[in-house]
């Protein structure tokens, strides 16, 4: 067994970093929460055709700037225009897009297919992560985010249920909140969507209406 002299390992690490021109404090990945780093790495490692070169270039440093997202939105607009699809894109509203059906496309399927292809090849795989990082810069897991929201709202439902158990229930689609406070936390745990308890009540009621129609 090779004996390591105390301090030699750290000196070796420093030497390697200096030789490679890197330092921990300047690493592009420093400060990127695990939640987002993992999702970005999955995209970078994916061989899916939906992850284009432009996406890989933007994601390579694990940071998506507003300028990079704006550029993708411009590409989306250009793509739609190239197909003759009249459209409006609201950059202030997290990528909300409105298209007009192409002439003669009675059921809208052709326009939908073209618009979907444009979305997937431009903002596609980057948008969800960009908006997610903006909303959840700490990279909290779903269970942890919900726990914090419920505690902040002083919601009685799920009181004392640990974040890990909430995460399990969310992942299994088995959470099923019944109070507006808990429902609102499920939908919008960071309060970033501008929704209120009325929206949560309505969503709970929507479920009731759907069931009544069965």
């Amino acid at each position, binding site marked *: 067994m090779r004996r390591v002299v105390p301090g030699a390992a750290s000196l070796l690490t420093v030497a390697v970093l200096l030789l490679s021109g890197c330092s921990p404090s300047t690493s592009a990945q420093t400060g990127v929460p695990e939640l987002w780093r993992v999702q970005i790495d999955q995209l970078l490692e994916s061989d899916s055709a939906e992850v284009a070169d432009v996406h890989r270039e933007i994601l390579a440093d694990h940071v998506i700037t507003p300028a990079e997202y704006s550029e993708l939105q411009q590409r989306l607009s250009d793509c739609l225009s190239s197909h003759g699809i009249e459209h409006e894109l609201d950059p202030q509203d997290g990528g909300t897009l409105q298209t007009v059906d192409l002439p003669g496309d009675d059921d809208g399927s052709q326009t939908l297919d073209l618009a979907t292809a444009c979305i997937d090849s431009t903002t596609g795989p980057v948008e969800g992560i960009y908006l997610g990082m903006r909303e959840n810069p700490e990279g909290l897991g779903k269970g942890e985010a919900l726990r914090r929201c419920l505690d902040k709202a002083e919601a009685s439902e799920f009181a004392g249920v640990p974040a890990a158990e909430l995460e399990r229930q969310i992942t299994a689609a088995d959470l099923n909140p019944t109070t507006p406070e808990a429902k609102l936390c499920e939908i919008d745990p960071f309060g970033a969507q501008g929704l209120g308890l009325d929206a949560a009540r309505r969503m*709970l009621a*929507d479920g009731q209406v759907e069931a009544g129609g069965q």
Partner: protein
Amino acid sequence: MKHSWRALTTVVAKTITRGAYSCTVDVYKPGLAAEATASACTAVQVYIRYNDYGTNRTSFGAQAGYSHAYAGTSSILGRGVRAEVASDWSDWKTY
């Protein structure tokens, strides 16, 4: 017939499948809009189609954990949802 809340909320869950992978989203039909929460999926996206005085339009929500799209008129033609499954997007599923 009396339903429990658990049964009621399960009714609006949609299972989105792509290949061997699947996950669940919750979809909603609030008045003049389409809404969905990713629930067990990574991200979700909705659209709503509507007729605007003779012109058919489609509004798309963002790809995110919660997606919402609004119709400009009450002439709703349809709603669709898709989800990110195993790093790829599923086909649209109407609801």
